């Protein structure tokens, strides 16, 4: 965001929509190493703080008749709990804390990223890929541990004609391995695109002639992005539940 200021010195419009995704050290200007405290660290810490604030401070009174924050915490809890129960079944509830962690992290990263001048951690492939690979590996290992070789039945569509089954198995296998890619790129792509578009409109606002339009567009895009932030968190979580269901009940 700060990098926008230097472009103002130039002649009129200059767009740097991708600058908001630059990873910078929080202290000093040195190179970004593995353990450097960066804006990534800051915004991930803020998301942890927000989760603590909502789910722990908000529920600290343990009231029978909940306060507002406790209601929201209970709503989030019930939302994810019901999602797992509906999609993955009762035996999926064992993995509730894991899925809840994913949901809360993605939701808060997405929404906090919409604060002006914030850094959106979930707009980076590196982050979402780790999340998606985590889900992929967990689900695959879980599938083999729970069902043994029967897990491979996931790829063998027994309801299809015998001649088609090898072909379908190949397709199923490819689609299975594409899952983490689509899972991660969907989230990162949505976040990145929305933020880049907002930045482009913000760049247009520098010109007095189109500023009203640009500001209107930013407002509209912001509302849309708020929706997208929540929907993508939901999509990421429900897909995790679907994959978990495949691992627990691999029969088609």
């Amino acid at each position, binding site marked *: 965001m700060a990098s926008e200021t230097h472009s103002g010195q130039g002649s009129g419009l200059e767009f740097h929509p991708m600058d908001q995704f630059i990873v910078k050290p929080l202290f000093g200007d040195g190179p970004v190493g593995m*353990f450097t405290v960066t804006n990534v660290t800051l915004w991930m810490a803020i998301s942890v703080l927000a989760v603590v604030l909502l789910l722990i401070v908000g529920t600290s009174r343990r009231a029978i008749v909940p306060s507002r924050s406790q209601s929201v915490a*209970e709503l989030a809890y019930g939302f994810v709990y019901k999602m797992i129960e509906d999609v993955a079944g009762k035996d999926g509830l064992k993995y509730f804390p894991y899925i809840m*962690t994913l949901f809360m992290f993605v939701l808060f990263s997405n929404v906090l990223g919409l604060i002006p001048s914030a850094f959106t951690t979930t707009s980076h492939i590196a982050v979402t890929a780790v999340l998606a690979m985590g889900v992929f590996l967990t689900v695959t290992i879980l599938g083999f541990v729970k069902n043994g070789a029967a897990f491979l039945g996931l790829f063998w569509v027994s309801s299809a004609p015998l001649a088609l089954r090898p072909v379908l198995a190949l397709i199923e296998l490819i689609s299975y391995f594409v899952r983490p890619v689509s899972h991660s790129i969907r989230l990162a792509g949505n976040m990145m695109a929305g933020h880049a578009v907002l930045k482009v409109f913000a760049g247009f606002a520098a010109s007095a002639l189109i500023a009203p339009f640009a500001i209107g567009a930013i407002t509209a895009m912001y509302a849309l992005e708020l929706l997208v932030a929540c929907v993508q968190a939901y999509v990421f979580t429900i897909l995790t539940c679907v994959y978990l269901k495949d691992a627990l009940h691999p029969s088609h």
Partner: protein
Amino acid sequence: MASETQAPVSSCVDAGGSAIGMPQLCGDWMGNQIFWLVVTLVVMFFILSKIALPRIAAVLAERQGRITNDIAAAEELRKKAQEAEAAYEKALAEAKAEAGRIVAEAKAEMQAEMDVEIAKADAEIAAQTAESEKKIVEIREGALEAVKEVAMDTAQDIVTAMGGKADAKSVTAAVNERMKG
């Protein structure tokens, strides 16, 4: 932030501090992001699984239990109220029946008493009537006697005044003869 005028510290940032291409694809930063992501996820997982989720689950379970208890208590109270109402209805019906019985009894008693009194009064009236009739007969007879006597006296006097000789026997016979007529 302040790095704009300095030399780029990363291969993904140009001299002006702007991104070269997509920062998402910059390999220099991925290790950092992955490290902090893993730290964040582990911290968040422990916060959720050790504190937040058990607490919310406990609150929800407690609320569910309280609701179930309250509904059961309400059901019990309703049953009690119904019982009380039934008992009240029964008592009311009994009291009504008792009142009806008492009224009927009192009526019968009064009727009996009245009958006795009426009978007594009737008997008294009859006795008095009979006595009165006897008295009337006596008076009537007394009156006839007196008339006969007066008539005889008068007749004797009239006969004497006329200058005749009044013989008591014939006067009496004459008066008796007249009075029969």
